[in-house]
């Protein structure tokens, strides 16, 4: 985009763009603002896509990605609001002004050609990009940052519904697919391209005519119309013929698929679906050569590295039925997750004030004051709670707790602005999970009812979780079986595992944050217990959690800023950044291995000549150390992450090293959770 300088980080760029949009919005330049919002969204999705596509180097932190997505969501809300405002899409204004000069007789031709809107866009684009290019936001960023204090109420820290609506999720999926594969044009599309060219030459010629040559002008117009019409009719005929042929082929292939499954008469819906999918695969293979080539290669040289190459190639072909099915399942699951995870946390019903809603209300100037009042009624319902919230937020916010919004015209984008400034202000490593977690229910009489409602809600959430986990398993199974149907050569035990791993690696990343959010909602109490234990033992030494003294350095003070097992702690902290269960498991395994390596090193400090056999670390030593590492990791989310991993770990890994490490991790976490009750029995010096 015009404003994207390469030196800046994507988030900063996106914020710059959004600020420009807000400014335009403020100046009532609806059309430009609309475009700029869209451009921001476009930029964000592009940046994230690039990030996601290049798995190797993770430049962006999870927090940053989450913020980008939230920013995009807010921009989208604003952009949506313009649709309600102007009946005509803003695009048309620009194009109509430019085309109105040409004669009215071309409108029919224009309508014919309008199956693709490209000419409009090209005329509209220059006028739109100008404001974006020459009003970079310098003057914006200086003073108004102060408005950041306003976020206090409406924002629950990290819980501002960071999730894209399912429609956007789906659109992102398809954008991704368009990136990877350039589709061939249909005859109609081709014709309309051709017609656009015709029209362009017609306009050029027309411009060269002198005003006196009216006759030539009419004839040119007529011939243009005729040509365009003809092109379209021919294209239509070709398209029909093509479609008929495709239909015939489809039927033929479907029969072939049916033969292959040659089951008894009664078919379940799943079998039916599988047949259709298999027919799609056959159809795809008629149109593409690469599956045949790969199959031949595999036959010639069956090699395990070839298998993963094949699967990753397959998954990069966005028009292959396997990939289509993958996207369909992802969308389905996201669609199920979204309504649950986009809602606020169950404990504090009045906290998740959705900013987008208030923006919606602010669309029309006459209702400008409304959201503000709804704001204050919301908080006045439970003043104690909102107060608590204030005190719970970081210090900067607490300095300026009064949220009396001054009614200026900037209020209309308060939330988006707020969001932006918040991004400006947020310290790079602010934990997103601190939010309202320690806001205990206040002592008002309604608490009992609330706790009952909460109980029901928790139960419902658990049910949802179970159902979604099951859906995910089914989805992955289906993907695997379609994969194996498409490439029979993959159907051996070891290849299948590889295949499954690749599928999961493609399947989980877009969904993980939503999945883990659901797990976090369900395991909220456990996370809170973990946090309490964590705070209680914040400065505990390894000895305090039962690590024998031979397994940590004798002189802790000499470590200077570091602490024992720090490398393992750092490793474990990376766990939340991965988006695929398998990778997370590997992270846990690495953590435990690092623990063993550290322990070995520390033991050598104590006894130089001990024989390694008797001294090797068993679970008796490992678990206390792991508990210490979990405490130092300071990440309650681990509880939910591990619970999710427990659901998605492969059966084959269950009894192996991965399974052992996950189990150990889970018990260490559970031990930390139990510290809050055990804490009362501990001698005071251990509580620090």
């Amino acid at each position, binding site marked *: 985009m015009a404003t994207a300088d390469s030196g800046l980080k994507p988030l900063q760029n996106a914020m710059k763009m959004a600020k420009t949009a807000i400014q335009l919005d403020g100046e009532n330049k609806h059309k430009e603002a609309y475009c700029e919002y869209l451009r921001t969204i476009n930029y964000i999705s592009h940046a994230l896509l690039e990030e996601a596509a290049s798995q190797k180097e993770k430049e962006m932190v999870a927090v940053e990605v989450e913020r980008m997505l939230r920013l995009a969501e807010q921009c989208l809300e604003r952009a949506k609001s313009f649709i309600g405002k102007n009946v005509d899409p803003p695009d048309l204004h620009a194009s109509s002004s430019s085309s109105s000069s040409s004669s009215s007789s071309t409108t029919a031709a224009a309508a014919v050609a309008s199956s693709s809107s490209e000419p409009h866009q090209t005329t509209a684009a220059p006028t739109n990009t100008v404001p974006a290019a020459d009003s970079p936001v310098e003057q914006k960023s200086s003073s108004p940052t102060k408005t950041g204090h306003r976020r206090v109420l409406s924002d629950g820290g990290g819980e501002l519904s960071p999730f894209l609506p399912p429609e956007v999720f789906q659109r992102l999926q398809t954008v991704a697919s368009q990136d990877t594969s350039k589709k061939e044009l249909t005859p109609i599309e081709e014709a309309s391209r051709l017609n656009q060219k015709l029209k362009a030459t017609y306009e050029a010629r027309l411009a060269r005519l002198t005003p006196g040559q009216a006759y030539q002008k009419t004839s040119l117009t007529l011939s243009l119309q005729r040509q365009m019409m003809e092109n379209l009719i021919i294209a239509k005929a070709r398209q029909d013929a093509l479609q008929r042929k495709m239909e015939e082929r489809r039927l033929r292939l479907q029969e072939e698929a049916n033969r292959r499954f040659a089951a008894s008469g009664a078919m379940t819906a799943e079998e039916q679906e599988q047949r259709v999918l298999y027919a799609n695969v056959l159809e795809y293979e008629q149109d593409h050569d690469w599956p045949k080539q790969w199959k031949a290669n595999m036959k010639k040289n069956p090699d395990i590295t070839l298998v993963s190459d094949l699967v990753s190639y397959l998954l990069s072909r966005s028009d292959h039925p396997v990939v289509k099915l993958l996207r369909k399942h992802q969308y389905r699951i996201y669609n199920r997750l979204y309504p649950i995870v986009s809602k606020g946390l169950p404990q504090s019903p009045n906290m998740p004030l959705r900013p987008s809603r208030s923006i919606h209300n602010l669309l029309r100037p006459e209702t400008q004051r409304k959201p503000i009042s709804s704001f204050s009624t919301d908080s006045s319902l439970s003043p104690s709670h909102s107060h608590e919230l204030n005190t719970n937020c970081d210090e900067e916010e607490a300095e300026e707790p009064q949220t009396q919004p001054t009614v200026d015209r900037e209020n209309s984008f308060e939330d988006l602005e707020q969001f932006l400034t918040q991004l400006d202000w947020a310290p790079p490593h602010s934990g997103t999970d601190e939010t309202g977690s320690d806001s205990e229910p206040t002592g008002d009489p309604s608490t009992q009812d609330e706790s009952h409602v909460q109980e029901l809600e928790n139960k419902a959430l658990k049910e949802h979780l179970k159902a979604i986990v099951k859906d995910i398993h089914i989805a992955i199974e289906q993907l695997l079986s379609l994969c194996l149907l498409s490439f029979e050569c993959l159907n051996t035990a070891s290849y299948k595992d590889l295949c499954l791993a690749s599928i999961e690696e493609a399947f989980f990343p877009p969904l993980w944050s939503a999945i883990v959010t659901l797990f976090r909602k369900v395991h909220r109490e456990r996370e809170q217990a973990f946090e309490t234990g964590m705070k209680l033992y914040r400065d505990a030494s390894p000895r305090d959690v039962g690590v024998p003294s031979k397994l940590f350095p004798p002189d802790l003070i000499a470590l200077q800023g570091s602490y024992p097992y720090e490398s393992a702690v750092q490793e474990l902290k990376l766990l939340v950044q991965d988006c695929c269960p398998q990778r997370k498991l590997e992270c846990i395994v690495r953590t435990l291995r690092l623990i063993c390596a550290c322990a070995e090193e520390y033991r050598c400090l104590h006894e130089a000549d001990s024989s390694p*056999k008797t001294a090797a670390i068993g679970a008796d030593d*490992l*678990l206390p150390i792991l508990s210490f590492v979990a405490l130092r990791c300071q990440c309650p989310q681990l509880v939910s992450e591990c619970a999710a991993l427990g659901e998605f770990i492969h059966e084959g890994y269950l009894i192996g090293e991965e399974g052992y490490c996950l189990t150990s991790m889970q*018990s260490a976490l559970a031990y930390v959770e139990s510290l809050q009750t055990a804490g009362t029995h501990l001698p005071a010096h251990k509580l620090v």
Partner: protein
Amino acid sequence: MAAAAAAAAASGGHSGKTYSFKVVLLGEGCVGKTSLVLRYCENKFNDKHITTLQASFLTKKLNITGKRVNLAIWDTAGQERFHALGPIYYRDSNGAILVYDVTDEDSFQKVKNWVKELRKMLGNEICLCIVGNKIDLDKDRHVSVEEAESYAESVGARHYHTSAKLNKGIEELFLDLCKRMMETAQAEERIKGNGSSQSASSRRGVQIVDDEPQATPAGGCCSSG
């Protein structure tokens, strides 16, 4: 989940090629279970790889009567405060080795508690081994051989005496356990193969029988079924 994983372990055997067994190691802090298992997997530790999980998690590949067996040995923490988390360790286990110190009466009591818990949670599916370790310190013995053996028999477990220090009885212990786990898996396969007509009762029968006779006669009876 538990059922699925158990099935996975059994299905390894179904192919007739490789059995995968999970064995948990239970025992109080100082009974020497770590040394025991390290002794057993010693070869692995001679080329001390720093990347392993040392004695907490070990694997061993065996070949028993022509069948390949992969053993995954899970050590557990003996400390009381981690006991609540036992179940997640021993779920889906095919076998359990419960170690006590022959010089420590208390550690034997702990073993009894575990046996109760395991039987309660996993039924008779799991092969139990009760192991009196440190027989090199026999002069300080506080748990009598008779008591331990009769207790083991009463709960359908087998009893072994070992010394990690002298490398005594360990090989036999694991070999025996593997054979028993194979029998259990084979019995399970048969039941699956025959459909669900003969259900848990017959499975249990096999389990109890295999307390007495050794692998070969049991195998003979298997082939007829």
